[in-house]
């Protein structure tokens, strides 16, 4: 911020080499963390959870009863998903998840949050005007659909089970998963139509 500060990339480089020199971090461990969130943990896991819930009523029941355990069944578990709750959209009830105080997000099922999720604009507006937020995403819901916002103010993380689109009756779990966008699991979007 101040004029005397290094450009941020150099500042981070300096900090990393200092922490390595002091023996606090191992560069291989840093690489592994980055690889994990770039290539392993991401919204495809949440999509698998949602698609399974759409086709398997028993799984859906387990997911709604204990989402932490149900997500672990498809391999989604760990950091920032220790206490997961799934909330299910219906024809007349939409859900939207936010963290107004920082940027809490269900990493185990969605990966790292997008920039807009962490932005003051979203954090400020979602709780006051969720319908306006949906407009920002080009989504318009009928006024007969109520909107429930979940502010992740403690350690519980929320996963939205979006409404299953019409015309998907014969589709396989894998096909369905491709319709489940990240935004539809945050509640700023809907699942894609086939």
């Amino acid at each position: 911020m101040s004029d005397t500060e290094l450009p941020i990339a150099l500042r981070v480089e300096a900090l990393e080499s200092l922490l390595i020199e002091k023996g606090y971090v191992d560069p291989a461990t840093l690489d592994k963390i980055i690889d994990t969130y770039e290539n392993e943990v991401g919204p495809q896991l949440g999509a698998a959870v949602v698609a399974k819930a759409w086709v398997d009523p028993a799984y859906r029941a387990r997911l709604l009863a204990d989402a932490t355990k149900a997500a672990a069944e498809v391999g989604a578990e760990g950091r920032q998903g220790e206490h997961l709750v799934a909330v299910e959209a219906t024809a007349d009830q939409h859900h939207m998840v936010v963290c107004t105080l920082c940027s809490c997000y269900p990493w185990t099922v969605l990966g790292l949050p997008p920039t807009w999720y962490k932005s003051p604009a979203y954090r400020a507006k979602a709780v006051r005007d969720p319908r306006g937020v949906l407009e920002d995403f080009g989504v318009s819901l009928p006024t007969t659909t109520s909107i429930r916002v979940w502010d992740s103010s403690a350690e519980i993380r929320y996963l939205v089970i979006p409404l299953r689109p019409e015309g998907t009756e014969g589709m396989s779990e894998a096909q369905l998963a491709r319709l489940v966008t990240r935004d539809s699991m945050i509640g700023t979007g809907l699942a894609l139509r086939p």
Partner: protein
Amino acid sequence: MNGVHDMGGMHGFGTVQPETDEPIFHERWETRVLALNLAVGRIGGWNIDRSRHTRESLPPATYLASSYYEIWLRGLENLLVKHGLVGTDELAAGKMIHLPPPGKTAMTVDQMVEGLRKGGPCNREVHTPAMFEVGQMVRAKNINPSGHTRLPRYARGKIGEIELVHGGFVFPDTNADLEGEHPQWCYTVRFTGTELWGPDSDPTTSVSVDCFETYLEPVEY
């Protein structure tokens, strides 16, 4: 603390800006900031609540002008200094000047993989019965602590309904100051949009806030 981080309900930040095909990271340095935070966090002697409190304690104008990973960088620097792992002279020089304290050993790849897989559960056993039950009406207290709290300003003084009872959880307000976990019952409280934002607001919305037991008081009707 009533800080600028507590932005629920604020105006003036403009419209939300989704990004088509957003990459997971926009710059290489962001990947390192994330990784450094996760790697040092395990050995630093702090906890997730203290990390959050350190970030929200940045000067307000800095907080608002900084991107998410910039905030994480500044927060990490402050934590390292406060906890004696790094000196401000070392930060300025980018070189070790003081020997590290004993027992602060880097996590291996295997330890980190295991750590990420296990996470850091915050549920704890609580030996008192829950004070509130599902369906009960409660008021979020009007508290204005100067330290860390997870009760957003917009919910204070407002009446809502207990919707979920989550069990016992680490209490962030004390944990952030390293004053102990003092676990409490944690609830989801659902407030109507009109209760939060007044009669002119959209009557078809509600906001559910996760609240620790001492944030709440019963409401008699």
